[in-house]
């Protein structure tokens, strides 16, 4: 069940981030790699958020963590990648792309934070019930 939640949350995150690129006209078949890369990034971010959500004490905290992670990851990656590529004009475009992608990514992060926070809350509820059952025995 938890694996299914993770799968669902990573699909949501990847779709929201790469889906906003599909709105732009003039996409070619070569851009499929960019979409795949963004999907992979969504998968990684959802995995990272899993441990944050497990430590969060409330639903709101998990949502905040997801939003912050979604906002910061593309900006940091764009900055590092632009400097890795030499910092030329074309490379500097990556910083702009990172900034532009951070908005839908943060939205995806908030939704995924909500999904994963719900999953963790359900697991904790089950733990509390089983503890009570053991005490009664």
């Amino acid at each position, binding site marked *: 069940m*938890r694996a299914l939640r993770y799968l669902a949350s990573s699909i949501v995150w990847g779709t929201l981030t790469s889906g906003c690129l599909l709105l732009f006209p003039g996409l070619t078949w070569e*851009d499929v*790699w960019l979409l795949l890369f963004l999907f992979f990034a969504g998968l990684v971010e959802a995995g990272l958020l899993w441990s944050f959500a497990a430590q969060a004490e409330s639903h709101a905290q998990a949502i905040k963590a997801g939003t912050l992670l979604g906002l910061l990851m593309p900006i940091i990656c764009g900055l590092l990648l632009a400097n890795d590529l030499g910092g030329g004009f074309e490379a500097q475009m990556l910083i702009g792309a990172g900034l532009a992608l951070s908005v839908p990514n943060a939205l995806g992060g908030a939704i995924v934070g909500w999904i994963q926070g719900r999953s963790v809350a359900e697991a904790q509820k089950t733990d509390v019930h089983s503890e009570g059952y053991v005490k009664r025995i």
Partner: protein
Amino acid sequence: METRNRIGTDIACAGIWIVFTCGPGLITIIHFTKLDRHLVWPLLSLAFVAVVEAGLTSSIVLETKSSAQAILGGGGLGLIFPVVGAYLLQKFVVDFENWSLVPDALVICFPSAIGGALAGWIQWRFNRSWLRPKL
């Protein structure tokens, strides 16, 4: 206190992973080329990747039931993550043809796997000692 311990473990894992991932690269650079100001960015990127991997291992280890599973999870992640990431990155950054990322990633993935296995073991040990008082 628990949160502080957990953050400490996460930082330790990320540090170990950074040493294993960036160390070989730094040694190669010192041996074959001169240290340059611009080399700080690739090393920073590798450190960032190591931090992300340590965070991912933390999530994986939460779901494991034995130390072997945790070590395998961390090692597997350290082996696969740099190669997949570099392959996808290389494919979409087609304009920079001279940028040979995949061979570099294939070299880095082995020390990264060792770092991942160590990080997985540390995380699992911490989780075991953290969960025991609750049971």
